[in-house]
């Protein structure tokens, strides 16, 4: 755990003080640094099931937000609303320059812009099984950004080398281990130069040792100043890498602030119970 860099050591542009002082929950403008992600009054229901209830959250540029909470709390739904994989019922979402107000409808152009500015990494990797690793990373660049195939391949090779996977370029994903597949999925998302990376339990489907490979890549990404939102049960990642910890339960953000403060001294009974359960494992 000691090799993990804390946010203070990462040369961040935003003082971590600004992030930890972001309470109260209902005034997101309390944060000083320029927010990269700003979600306001988001609501989402599946039938009678209120999955998100008036959720507001902001993520300062270049910072890492870890999201924890019991299963069914709405973490995935919140993350998936940020790139409109799920359509919220109400609220606004701002990513960088792109603002979506659900009440005003979502124009296809704005949807595309929002998707382009976010990269997403799934628990189940979701690589395209019928394409080589190289094509998995190059094709989106060609189709979404209009890069030439040689330019895209060059970028893909560079990313694969960075992930320590340059020898996998010609393989099909099913020939790669889970940890390798997840790193390929991260490379695929990074190749599109996103402003924000969204991770939904990226290591939950992996053995701990293999998960560590993926977490290392994510730490490196964080240290390079990528804005990240990470749903995770990896408490050491949440404690040591994230700048902001968000605790969700029953569709609400029940606690939010400095990760170590919350872990040491949770304010909410629900948080205490959850942390207790996670630490027990």
């Amino acid at each position: 755990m000691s090799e993990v860099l804390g946010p203070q050591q990462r040369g961040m542009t935003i003082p971590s003080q600004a992030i930890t002082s972001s309470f109260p929950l209902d005034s997101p403008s309390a944060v000083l640094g320029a927010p990269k992600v700003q979600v306001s009054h988001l609501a989402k229901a599946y039938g009678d099931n209120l999955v998100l209830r008036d959720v507001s959250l902001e993520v300062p540029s270049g910072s890492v937000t870890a999201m924890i909470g019991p299963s069914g709390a709405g973490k995935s739904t919140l993350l998936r609303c940020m790139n409109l994989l799920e359509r919220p019922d109400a609220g606004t979402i701002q990513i960088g320059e792109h603002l979506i107000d659900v009440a005003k409808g979502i124009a296809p152009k704005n949807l595309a812009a929002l998707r382009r500015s976010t990269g997403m990494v799934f628990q189940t990797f979701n690589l395209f099984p019928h394409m080589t690793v190289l094509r998995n990373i190059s094709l989106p660049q060609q189709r979404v950004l209009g890069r030439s195939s040689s330019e895209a391949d060059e970028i893909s090779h560079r990313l694969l080398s960075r992930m320590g996977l340059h020898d996998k370029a010609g393989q099909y994903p099913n020939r790669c281990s889970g940890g390798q597949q997840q790193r390929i999925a991260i490379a695929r998302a990074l190749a599109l130069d996103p402003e924000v990376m969204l991770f939904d339990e990226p290591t939950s489907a992996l053995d701990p040792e293999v998960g560590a490979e993926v977490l290392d890549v994510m730490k490196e990404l964080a240290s390079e100043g990528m804005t990240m939102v990470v749903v995770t049960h990896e408490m050491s990642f949440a404690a040591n890498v994230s700048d902001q910890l968000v605790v969700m339960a029953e569709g609400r953000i029940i606690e939010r602030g400095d990760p170590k403060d919350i872990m040491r001294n949770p304010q909410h009974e629900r948080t205490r119970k959850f942390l207790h359960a996670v630490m027990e494992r």
Partner: protein
Amino acid sequence: MNVEILFAVLTGLPLTILITLTALGIGTLLAIPLLFGLRSTNRTVWFISRCFVDICRGIPPIVWLFVLFFGVSVGSARLSAFAAGVIGLGLVASGYLAEIFRGAVKAVHAGQWEAAHALGFPATSTWSQVIGPQVLRTALPGFTTYAIALLKDSSIVSILGVAEMVFTTSQLARSSDLGIFVYAVAAAVYIGLSVPLGVLSRSLDVKLRKAVA
């Protein structure tokens, strides 16, 4: 002697193959818009597609053939026996193939759609690059099974007087004293066509599976 019988039976083979391929082509071409219709969120589009598929599949091929051959006329021109045959078989095929394709699309893991959407793929690329190739792979066994069935069902067109393989065979049976033997030869030809088709499809399926899944 036996070789002569074989050749006599085989004179109908080109038409059998032509009917099968044409009906399969018509069926596939119709099945693709039907697939999108069956997946449509527009209730009217969905309902029309659903009815079309159920009517195509629900009416026996022989009824289609009679309806099209005796019932359809444009001015004084009627459909030829061949046209009525391939259109009738094509319509039935379109209903079945649309369902085969729909099942194959449903079998594509939801994560594939999500990945394509999250990456910001335009809808055309999502279909042509991500979903389509996986659908083809999944639909292949069902498609070949249907093609083999159609190869045999194409014999029904003989009832309208199209000289495909069963037609030539039954003529031969009537004009000679060989009786059931000619039919056995025809049966052997059908098996000689459908078994290799099945083997080919299965080996292609295994190859595709090995390469990807």
